[in-house]
């Protein structure tokens, strides 16, 4: 197991860089087609006259904006996520045991001590965020904190520390930016379609239709606006699910005690409370899926996490192999 986590880190760093590149190109393409779609909607003649210049401009500006969003997400995204989830930073004196456990796991992983946050919520959950081990934070809900024994807490924190050490946090942070931007773009498109729709019908009466080309572009844009956000999220959740298994395995490598995390996951399994502050944009960051209606069909492509019973089974296998 030992040599693989280095490969994993290298892979995560590579994927993060690749993600930003693809994200910029993807956003540019989406923006280009959506822009053409908007042009087709508002002024069908413009598309017929092939005003590619303006559309390319729109794509270029979108790519630059995407890059700016990536940079912003990279440097400030962790603060944003912590703020959105209602996390409050705590000090050693507030919860010495929690701090000690976090520090123990940071030592075992050979990374600096991350910041520790608490979320005042009865739901059982925890997450880690940041851009690298030097700029990282772990957050845990008060509900989970109260229910876990020291061993179980150690398992959960080891899982989060593994996300930090393995650079999962960076990849996930950029993923969140990607999905957020794509969703925003398509929302923006729908808003224009809705407000411009009325004008279009009157225009086309006068002009006698925009011709098949304008219609095709418009339909393509509609399809993209529908499909792109879903596609982005499917990719995000697929990546996230895989990371969860890896983080569980790395956690055991740190604690050398699979039972602790297995017991903690069993407690999460029994939890029915929904995290108040959770939304789909940050769901993939948590140790277990915070949105419970997805849990029932957790094997589907829309699940940010693998089913808990699978994760527990894998940990049990480790316990019995010892």
């Amino acid at each position, binding site marked *: 197991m030992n040599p693989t986590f280095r490969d994993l880190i290298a892979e995560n760093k590579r994927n993060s860089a690749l993600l930003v590149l693809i994200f910029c190109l993807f956003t540019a393409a989406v923006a280009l087609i959506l822009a053409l779609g908007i042009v087709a909607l508002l002024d069908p003649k413009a598309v017929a006259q092939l005003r590619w210049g303006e559309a390319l401009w729109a794509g270029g500006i979108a790519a630059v904006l995407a890059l700016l969003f990536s940079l912003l997400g990279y440097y400030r995204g962790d603060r944003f996520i912590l703020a959105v989830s209602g996390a409050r930073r705590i000090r050693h004196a507030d919860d*010495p045991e929690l701090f*000690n456990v976090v520090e123990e796991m940071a*030592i*075992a992983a050979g990374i600096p001590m991350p910041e520790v946050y608490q979320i005042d919520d009865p739901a059982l959950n925890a997450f880690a965020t940041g851009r690298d081990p030097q700029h990282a934070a772990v957050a845990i809900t008060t509900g989970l904190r109260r229910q876990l024994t020291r061993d179980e807490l150690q398992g959960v924190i080891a899982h989060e520390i593994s996300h930090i050490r393995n650079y999962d946090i960076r990849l996930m942070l950029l993923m969140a930016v990607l999905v957020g931007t794509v969703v925003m773009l398509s929302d923006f498109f729908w808003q224009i379609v809705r407000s411009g729709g009325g004008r279009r019908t009157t225009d086309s009466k006068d002009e006698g239709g925009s011709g098949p080309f304008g219609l095709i572009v418009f339909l393509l844009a509609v399809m993209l606006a529908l499909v792109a956000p879903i596609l982005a999220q499917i990719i995000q959740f697929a990546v996230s699910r895989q990371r969860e298994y890896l983080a569980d395995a790395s956690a055991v490598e740190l604690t050398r*005690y699979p039972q602790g995390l297995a017991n903690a996951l069993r407690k999460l399994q029994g939890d029915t409370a929904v995290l108040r502050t959770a939304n789909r944009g940050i769901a993939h960051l948590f140790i277990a899926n915070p949105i419970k209606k997805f849990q029932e069909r957790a094997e589907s492509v829309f699940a940010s996490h693998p089913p808990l019973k699978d994760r527990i089974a894998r940990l049990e296998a480790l316990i019995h192999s010892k």
Partner: protein
Amino acid sequence: MEPWLIITVIVVGVLVLAGIAVYNGLVSKKVETENAWSQIDVQLKRRHDLIPNLVETVKGYAAHEKETLEKVIQARNAAITAHGIAAQAQAENALTSTLKTLFAVAEAYPDLKANQSFLGLQEELTATENRISFARQHYNDVVSQYNAALMRFPANIVANLFGFRQVEFFQLDAAEMAAVRQAPQVKF
């Protein structure tokens, strides 16, 4: 220039560059093992610093357990002054066992067990014991990576050339091994 000369120069250049990359990789792995080792010392020192407070707190409730307290202080001083890896490990083990005795003795004093600062110190000491074992575990992890890197081809050639040596693991005795595997909070 002769074409074979150019080819030779290119081949030698590539080999030198590859050699430098491998060398630097080995150096950073070596530094990592050294860092991991010093991290163990940091945690050991932390434990030494906690003990005077603990002894003071226990004294207030269980003054006639003088012998046990003396032993803890002696073991602590021995651990601080111990030199060499083997002697240090032995002194630290002795300190661990005197601390175990102290916490076992404390069980007989309900007032002491209910004391907030005693409970706090107990948590801190438990955590420090854990930190020590996790720091050792991390040390062994990076040592095993370094040692494996030394043996791999072609790094082994560079390693032989520049005298990189295998680093020794931190050895735990059987009793300590069992303690590491156990649930941490029942250690005392």
